[in-house]
């Protein structure tokens, strides 16, 4: 592996356990040590050979280009102008440019800052885009952690979808069933969500550990079982809100809702604090605890871990339960957060977050900080996407495309190097993090 210096810190073997959190430019320098190198040269080298930060940046760029092309292809007015392209190419090109520019400007305004709000001198208006980004990132952080922790133990958690529904069901039930004082009620709701997800995912862990049932298939199946279970619950008297034409759950009490942090006008809420606490917990678990060491050992090489006396099944069950607990927190933030005004269960409570979680974990390279940044990026795309849909008439579905392209490129850095003619483009797959991150991959 010495010929891929920038990936030197990625786990291949036991070295995994010493892997630094963010293996980037300094690693590139250390793996192939030239005697003396200026900082500037190191940067140039990093760009030319394409280390992971550079690859990620280029991946985002590529994804935005793909998104732009799709926007042009899908706009009937712009397409009509291409019909007479050879008579007046400027017309078609400028229409394309305006379409794409408007969309991405709206994306920026909706997610980072809108200069138009400066005149108001009113903080909530100015901070609203950032607040939206953080709010959208909150469930994604939980999701990224959920998938990451399973990854580290050599398991694929494709079941965040079902686990978050399980968590949401328990959390919502705790929210409308009990009347408890402020504070305590929220604790009960959060614990309920954690347990709901943990038990549901733990089931997959037990089936894997005891019967060797492949967790990918089991978690996918559990996703659908959760969906149907939820839609059945929404027909029962216990859960369904009476006198409503649509199947909606009973609304949670106000004491069970995640409080907003900076007043009612910004939607950012206690969820982000919990999410960051979970990130810390994840960091501590993996890097400072015996249990986390076992998880990573089992993930890197189950046979070796077994030989040293670790319990592979225990590690697998624990990893899945932890993953489920994190996914359950997505459920909590979905029902008790600001995303759903009624704070009630609905059939679309999952909002596809279980699958976005996988992309967050991949983009974040399963590292704690990486997950936070990936979640913020995707949260920003989501927040900006709503604005884009409203003001530039570009469907928010484009965000899913952009996310998927980013992750595909990040998973295959060699592809990005080929496209941008960086050095080391012909090294096949050894640079692709996903193939290595999960050395214990099994067939499905």
């Amino acid at each position, binding site marked *: 592996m010495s010929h891929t210096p920038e990936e030197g810190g990625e786990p291949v073997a036991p070295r995994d356990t010493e892997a630094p959190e963010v293996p980037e430019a300094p690693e590139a320098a250390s793996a192939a040590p030239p005697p003396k190198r200026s900082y500037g040269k190191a940067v140039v080298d990093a760009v030319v050979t394409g280390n992971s930060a550079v690859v990620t940046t280029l991946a985002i760029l590529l994804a935005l280009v793909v998104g732009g092309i799709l926007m042009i292809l899908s706009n009937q007015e712009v397409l009509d102008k291409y019909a007479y392209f050879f008579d007046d190419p400027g017309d078609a090109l400028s229409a394309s440019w305006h379409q794409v520019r408007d969309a991405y400007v709206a994306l920026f305004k909706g997610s980072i800052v809108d200069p138009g709000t400066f005149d108001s001198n009113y903080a909530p208006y100015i901070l609203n885009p950032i607040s939206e980004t953080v709010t959208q990132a909150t469930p994604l952080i939980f999701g990224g952690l959920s998938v990451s922790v399973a990854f580290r133990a050599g398991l694929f958690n494709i079941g965040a979808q079902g686990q978050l529904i399980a968590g949401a069901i328990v959390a919502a039930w705790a929210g409308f069933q009990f009347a408890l004082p402020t504070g305590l009620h929220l604790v009960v709701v959060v614990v309920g969500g954690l347990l709901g997800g943990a038990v549901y995912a733990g089931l997959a862990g037990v089936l894997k550990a005891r019967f060797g049932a492949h967790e990918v298939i089991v978690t996918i199946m559990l996703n659908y*079982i959760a969906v149907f279970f939820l*839609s059945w619950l929404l027909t029962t008297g216990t859960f369904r809100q009476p006198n409503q034409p649509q199947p909606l759950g009973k609304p949670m009490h106000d004491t069970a809702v995640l409080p907003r942090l900076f007043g009612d006008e910004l939607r950012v809420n206690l969820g982000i604090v919990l999410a960051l606490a979970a990130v810390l917990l994840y960091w501590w678990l993996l890097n400072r605890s015996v249990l986390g060491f076992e998880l990573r050992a089992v993930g890197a090489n189950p046979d070796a871990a077994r030989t040293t006396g670790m319990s592979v099944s225990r590690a697998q069950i624990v990893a899945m339960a932890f993953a489920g607990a994190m996914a359950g927190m997505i459920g909590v933030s979905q029902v008790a957060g600001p995303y759903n005004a009624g704070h009630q269960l609905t059939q679309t409570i999952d909002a596809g977050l279980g699958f976005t979680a996988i992309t967050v974990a991949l983009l974040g390279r399963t590292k704690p900080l990486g997950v936070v940044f990936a979640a913020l990026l995707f949260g920003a795309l989501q927040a900006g996407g709503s604005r884009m849909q409203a003001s530039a008439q570009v469907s928010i579905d484009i965000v899913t495309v952009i996310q*998927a392209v980013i992750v595909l490129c990040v998973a295959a850095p060699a592809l990005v190097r080929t496209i941008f003619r960086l050095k080391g483009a012909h090294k096949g797959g050894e640079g692709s993090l996903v193939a290595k991150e999960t050395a214990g991959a099994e067939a*499905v």
Partner: protein
Amino acid sequence: MSQTLVTPGARTPQDAADAAARTLQAASRRRALITGGGFLAVGAYALWAFGLGTEGGTDAVFGMTVTGSGPKVGDLEVGARATAIAMSVVCMAAGVARVVLDASKLWRRLTTSVFVAAFVVAFLCWAVAGKQMSFAGALQNTMLAATPLILGALGGVVGERSGVVNIAIEGQFLFGAFAAALVASITDSLWAGLVAGAVAGGLVGALLAVFAVRYMVEQVVLGVVINLLVAGMTGFLYSQLLRPHGDKYNNPGVFQNHAVPGLSEIPVLGPVLLDVNAIVYLMYVLVAVVHFGLFHTRWGLRARAVGEHPTAADTVGIRVRRTRYLNVSGAGCIAGIGGAFLTIGTVGTFSKDMASGAGYIALAAVIFGRWRPLGAVAAALLFGFSKALATSLQTVQTPIPSEVLQMLPYVVTIFAVAGLVGRVRPPAAANKPYEKA
């Protein structure tokens, strides 16, 4: 398996071999006991829940005429309680037979089939007691639900047998459905739409192959990400183009049914199987081609070699990567035809996320069918049947919620992969990228 081969106390190789054989036999005895015991328990439960524990005196009426085509057939009226009791006893008998008699392959299949069929009949008698349900209609819906599943599962079998896990069936369905609707609308030709659907599925397959084979991305994750990509792309184009300009881009029409003269006059099954549209006939052909191809041709031998032991295949001169590229792309084409069926084979328009998880069920059918084309077909039919039953029983207002029925395929699949229905073993090299040493 390694534990069974190293038996303590074995003095000679012959002893060791005998001991190993005994251990294997014990394992298969144990499986027969577990499965047979399970059949017995479920049969006993059915006996109480569907038969002895219910009120007697009502009939269950099953409509046997396929609406719109085929010969008229009288309704089937049976005494609900008596039939349920009889069928539950058959379930239990299948369990006893499984335990007592020898566990040859044929016998296992026979007892399982008898058990499943008897259980379904017992259940239906209970659910429909005092009411009427169109059984023929349920069979027709089964074909509608199962056709894409079968095509997707065939694609999955081909891909996985070649060593590439195909979680992207869902994406192939969606893109196939989308392209078929779009191209058929623009060209005004359903056949062009069908070809476009196949090509679109093939493109998704090729994308999967390139990333899995060339860039060695972990295949499960890759499949999920590709599904997201396709869902986002088709959803986006649908919102931007197909929905606002539905007449122009999303108005493909549907393949008409054609009856096979004579044979489609067979009561019940005739019109269900042989008065169908072109894609279903194509599906029949593809099932036969894939089954024959995989097990009786040079192509199939090579595909399986690449999927089981790529190094050995490479050594004898099979080009591993090339084989995988071609097979996975071809598998994508087959799944893409399944996607085309969703639009130009049934409903006639594309809608956002219209595959709604069918790709994942097709994947389950691959596993449930133990990576064999015919097994996958049987599993897909079973899944299709349970979906059709859920729809039919929803209108009949049965005692149990239809959601439970819809869950059934997924629950059964979990039991299957947990090894409770029998061992499943994937192709050895699936999800293992091949790197030339």
